[in-house]
């Protein structure tokens, strides 16, 4: 089983804090990879918060292909950060030649586009780049979105952090929201796309668990949206459902839990809103998640959520101090990064709860 974690803070946080959150939990994960998505960026990216940021790992040729594509589609490069790696011998990392984090400006004629149209352009561009690099076998594109940075690699997370100098806080890389996970795909092939967190149009999600309805989720999601692709991991289904419910159907966040772990019919019958809940359950039966799970997600407005499967077969705990809320599979992670917090206020959500943390770090805890 994976271990997952996230940090939401009033002040920007360096990735090393996320690593400190995860490493004490390493008996549960296997140190086979590192993946994180940072949202609401500070440091070198703070100037370009409204400009889409491309996160990719590629070969030199792959980089050229992307540059040509972006040029031909009139995206204007604004800034670029290519980490200079620490290539000391003995590091456990299957590194790609280049890691590119690059801000672009929209083509001029896109300025008249609506927000939704712009979102579609960004998604279409990422999908096109992914296909380009995938077909050529020259790299991986993880995200292309304003104020979002994704880093994924195969290897020991400590060594990966050393490779990218993530242990040293030099002020260039920080964010108010970080979602992190320290394991490569375990059930299926080891491919970089399979490592969560996954990202789609402002939604980030990682999951600890098993989605036993993977096949039926996947078969259904494939026809719902062009962005629902890959399926290298059964956890991607959680993200796509989150995106579908909130972004496509535009339902309030309260209904996400009703889609993935619907109430039993007996309980629905007792509810005032039973007609709505029944309709959701029957129309989205193929998005139900069955199996042990915990989810941590970040929404486009940077609210962070977590919830569990309907039998509470996977753990999660939320801890808080003055400036930070952190979520982790195991409490030892929280003890490492916020040892002085009031532990009596830690939250261990139950199987029917959803926890939502807003940008003021107010923690909402409500029942499905």
């Amino acid at each position, binding site marked *: 089983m994976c271990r997952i974690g996230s940090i939401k803070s009033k002040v920007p946080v360096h990735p090393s804090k996320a690593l400190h959150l995860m490493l004490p939990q390493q008996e549960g994960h296997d140190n086979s990879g590192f993946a994180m998505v940072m949202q609401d960026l500070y440091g070198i990216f703070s100037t370009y918060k409204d400009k889409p940021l491309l996160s990719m790992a590629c070969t030199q040729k792959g980089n050229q292909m992307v540059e040509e594509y972006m040029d031909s589609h009139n995206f204007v490069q604004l800034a670029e950060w290519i980490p200079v790696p620490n290539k000391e011998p003995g590091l456990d990392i299957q590194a790609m030649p280049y890691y590119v984090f690059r801000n672009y400006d929209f083509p001029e004629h896109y300025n008249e586009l609506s927000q939704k149209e712009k979102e579609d352009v960004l998604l279409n561009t990422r999908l096109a780049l992914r296909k380009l690099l995938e077909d050529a076998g020259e790299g991986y594109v993880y995200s292309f979105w304003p104020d979002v940075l994704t880093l994924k690699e195969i290897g020991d997370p400590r060594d990966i952090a050393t490779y990218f100098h993530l242990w040293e806080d030099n002020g260039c890389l920080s964010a108010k929201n970080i979602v992190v996970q320290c394991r490569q795909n375990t059930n299926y092939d080891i491919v970089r796309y399979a490592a969560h967190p996954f990202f789609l149009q402002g939604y980030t999600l990682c999951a600890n668990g098993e989605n036993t309805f993977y096949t039926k989720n996947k078969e259904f999601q494939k026809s719902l949206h062009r962005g629902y692709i890959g399926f290298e991991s059964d956890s991607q289904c959680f993200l796509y459902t989150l995106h579908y419910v909130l972004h496509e159907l535009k339902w*309030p966040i309260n209904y996400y839990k009703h889609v993935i772990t619907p109430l039993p019919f007996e309980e629905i019958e007792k509810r005032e809103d039973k007609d709505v809940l029944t309709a959701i359950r029957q129309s989205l*039966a193929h998005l139900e998640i069955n199996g042990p799970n915990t989810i941590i997600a970040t929404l486009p407005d940077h609210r962070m959520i977590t919830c569990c499967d309907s039998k509470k077969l996977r753990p999660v705990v939320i801890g808080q101090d003055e400036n930070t809320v952190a979520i982790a599979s195991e409490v030892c992670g929280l003890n490492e990064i916020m040892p002085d917090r009031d532990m009596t206020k830690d939250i261990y959500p139950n199987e029917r709860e959803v926890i939502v943390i807003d940008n003021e770090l107010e923690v909402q805890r409500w029942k499905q």
Partner: protein
Amino acid sequence: MEAVKTQDISVNDLAWKIEYHADRCTMCGSCVASCSFKAIKVETQAQSIVVSTDSQPKPEHRHVARPIIKQVASLTDFCRGCGMCEKVCPNNAIHPVRNPDSRKTLLSKDAGPIKRGGRTNLNAQRTLDSIIVGRISQMTDPSLDAARHTFDIRSPFGRVLSAKELPFQMKDGKMVMATKTPPVNWIYPLIFSDMSIGALSTRAWEAVALACAYLNEKCGLPVRMSSGEGGMPVKLMESDYLKYFILQIASGHFGWNRIVKAIPHMVTDPAGVLIKIGQGAKPGDGGLLPAAKVAEHVQAIRGVPKATLSSPPNHQGLYSIEESVQKMHLSLNAAFGFRVPVAIKCAASATSVSVYNNLLRDPYKICGGFFIDGIQGGTGAANEVSLDHTGHPVVSKIRDCYLAAVKQGLQGQIPLYGGGGIGMTGNAAADAFKMMCLGANGVFVGKVLIQLLGCVGNEQGRCNSCNTGKCPMGICTQDPRLVKRLDIDKGAQKIVDYVLAFDAELKKLMAPIGNSSIPVGRSDALVSTDKAIADKLGIQYVC
């Protein structure tokens, strides 16, 4: 010898031979009295025997005339192998034995095509038995506990809209329904299939109905029962129990005169309406109720004289599937105020996917279920040539239809129910579970139910006499003397016990794959030991 011609029928030409032990027979006559087919008779036989009655052996040769039980050599009054004689014999003196040298099928066409009941005797292959539930939760995720976890075993019956079509609107931060949506009932995924009053005896039908009501009221399992084509008793239609019944309308529209008249007096809605287009056992044929079974009460319910009731092969006036949707679905929906789901049942066919596509794409969104009935389904009466040589297996058909919906992103919108041979080897739960993993929302069973009531018919030619009106078990007959053989309460109890075991077994299959709700479409949970089947169904081949 001159008195015997080679064309004469002998017992050895028949499918079953009676093995009779005169030495054990007490001449009680029970066997002859109980044989509804008149396949055995009492006859006097000249016997040459040696007896010794003294205390010392003193053999004495005698010629005696003794009564014996003898099998009738006839192509009309022949032994069906039902075993009633054996059942009633106190001394184990008589029983039927299958005759491998039978010439009966060849010889008994003097009066036209052979008619019989039961199911196919030629195509009883068991695809489902080479499929195994092979994706077991081991370490990656925990299996559930069949005895302690809760399971949500319910299936939709009704037209399900896509999420984007749901008429939600926001009110005080919550979603509410702005308008009505098509009715959907969530029912137990095991439907008691359509067997009419007429095909079944009143007692048999009542036993099935009683079991259905008991399962709902006492066991909390919302099992639904289809009336079959032939109507229902008015008192039942005007009772609260109507909610457990799916009214069937077939091409003969039998019983609908009374149903329509009862509508204003109904205190609750029926669970659904099922339009029967075809039947797996005899696709292309309408219902058939031989005159022998059209008893007075059947005449009354159906409003017909005593005559053979042949339903036409098609619903008259329906010439295309578009018409079917517009005319039948709309009018039946309208009849119950659009509160009752209307589903359709077809024989499995090479065209099933086309039918399903048409229904999925119908603009009225009005079809509430697609029932596919495979070749292994049963019937009360059909031509043997239809039973054995027409039809289509249901397993791959359910899969094909499900995948056709998947391709269009429409899976789940019109629930799929599969039937025809479910439970043929005794375990309906395993069959149902595999069908659901392949894409069915549920299954329907008929034959299993009457087998639980006592039917001994099988697909190896045993009995299969439902068409004769002489059912020895009192199930498929209207002869009051035969019907009395059936104990309604005991019969209902057998069905209830079976369904409770079905429910427990379903959980025993859901638990190891880690699912607490029905795994519709979880083909990844199945593996097959047959490569061809695995390839066809898109599941893993294992060996």
